[in-house]
């Protein structure tokens, strides 16, 4: 019997994928294997409770630091040992560089940034954004082994059921990576949950200088909204990467998204298109953001935003 193999270095994502794998495996007559790589993880028990029949656990020293080439090699060996024909990974940055390297090793096709995965007949159909976010493509893989890297928080995690997966120690032959991890430091930045925010203010390169981010912050406060930004603004270093909305950032679904000084290029708007209401402030009446706006204000943000803040404070 073939297995679905699940792996992510992020425990939450691994649990989410395992629960989904269980559902798919049930429908496809497959089993579920999960891999826990590297030391210091206590995930094995939880993976079992969420549906893994087998949990492959290894703290092989070559996996220290989780270099992508060694991680891919370890997973390829586990996949072969488990007889896996479907591999589910998380499309985190680490997962997204791992997926194709693993796929290449397994002669597998791969879909990354998967936003939904469904079984149609006996075929797995994955969707992902295409043309920079202009469209959503539904894709299938024709190879015997298939690798899918799924965006985190795509699936619900159900309740755990008691019962442990069988813990397996895989027989691995790994060489340490040629790539050396010189330093790893935690990112500073405040955790923000844009995915679940009800109101969001987005700021972009229409701002003239770093200090003016404060204007966005005040507007967000007056509106009871979270503050977010474009990649363009984050590239300046004015706000953290975790505040980016779009193709390479958060996909949001607020009641109101208010964009300020944002042109509305497709890689950004793909992250706001599920908003209930979209409003925009931009000096350029032809800015593409207005094509997507319910409410548009053509004007200078340095005049409009203070006026908005004042008006909002009065209601």
């Amino acid at each position: 019997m073939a297995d679905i193999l699940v792996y992510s270095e992020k425990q939450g994502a691994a649990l989410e994928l395992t629960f989904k794998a269980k559902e798919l495996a049930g429908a496809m007559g497959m089993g579920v294997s999960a891999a826990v790589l590297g030391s210091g993880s206590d995930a094995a028990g939880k993976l079992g409770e969420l549906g893994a029949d087998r949990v492959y656990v290894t703290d092989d020293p070559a996996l220290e630091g989780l270099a992508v080439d060694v991680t891919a090699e370890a997973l390829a060996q586990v996949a072969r040992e488990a007889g896996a024909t479907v591999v589910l990974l998380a499309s985190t940055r680490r997962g997204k560089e791992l997926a194709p390297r693993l796929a290449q090793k397994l002669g597998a096709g791969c879909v990354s940034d998967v936003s939904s995965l469904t079984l149609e007949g006996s075929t797995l159909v994955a969707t992902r954004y295409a043309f920079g976010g202009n469209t959503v493509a539904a894709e299938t893989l024709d190879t015997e082994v298939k690798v899918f890297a799924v965006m985190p928080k795509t699936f619900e995690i159900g309740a755990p059921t008691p019962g442990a997966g069988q813990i397996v120690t895989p027989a691995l032959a790994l060489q340490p990576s040629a790539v050396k991890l010189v330093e790893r430091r935690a990112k500073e930045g405040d955790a923000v949950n844009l995915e679940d925010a009800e109101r969001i203010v987005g700021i972009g390169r229409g701002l003239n200088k770093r200090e003016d981010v404060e204007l966005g912050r005040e507007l967000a406060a007056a509106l009871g909204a979270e503050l977010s930004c474009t990649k363009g603004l984050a590239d300046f270093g004015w706000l953290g990467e975790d505040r980016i909305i779009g193709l390479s950032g958060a996909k949001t679904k607020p009641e109101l998204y208010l964009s300020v000084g944002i042109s509305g290029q497709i890689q950004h708007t793909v992250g706001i298109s599920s908003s209930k209401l979209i409003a925009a402030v931009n000096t350029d009446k032809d800015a593409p953001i207005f094509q997507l706006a319910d409410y548009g204000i053509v004007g200078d943000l340095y005049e409009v935003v203070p006026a908005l803040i004042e008006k909002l404070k009065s209601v």
Partner: protein
Amino acid sequence: MRLDIVVCVKTNPDLQMIRIKNREPVLEAIPFKAGDLEKNAVEAALQLRDAAGDGKVVVLVVAEGNRKVRETVKEVLAMGADEAVLVVDPALETTDQAGVAAALAAALQKIGSYDLVLFGEGSTDNYTGQVGPRVAEILGLPQVGYARKITAGGAGVLAERSMDESIETLEAPLPAVVTVVSEINEPRIPSLMNIMKAGKKPVEEWSLADMGLDTAAVAPVRSILSNLAEEQDRKHIMFEGGAAEQAEAFVNALIKEGVLGR
């Protein structure tokens, strides 16, 4: 020190120009241009070459026909790349990331000697991030993704990269594959003189057969069942007047929508 760098550059339809008709993207008459992140990669390569003092930057492009590639190649040669290799073959029309990677890897083997191979973190249109890691695996090269700073020296490359929750500094021996993110630099705008010079730079064109690949090597392994735009139904109400009037009208609209004042 000598540094030979190959930059893999894709040519993309200008996404901002795509119109949607009946939920389908209309690609006719859309201009093609070099991918955004690949321009960052070219800029990084130029800076590394110049810092090393010796070496060359070769642009490598894979496409099914050379019509749409020419502009792209001119664009990056004008930035300052030294030469270009085009892999052009009609068999690439239907290929996918695995096939493009196979073609790039074969071309790199034919090029033979290089210290670094640079990619974008993802292509502007597909953004799969698959091609770089696949090439690294085929050639058995070390791989560093998401670089936002690169320095080369001695036998290796030092790259700082931004991951989901951490900043990492990695050191890889050469030759290595590195993919870059947009924050790494601001790509230069070519001067008129460099645009004129670009036309004289060496450009080679290879078919799959020239590299010893048969068409099966680039046959697609994934099928696209549908590719449709999401439907958007927006109100498009514009507020006129001065800032105070606009603000008032907008806030009133939000109250009416039930977003405010509950």
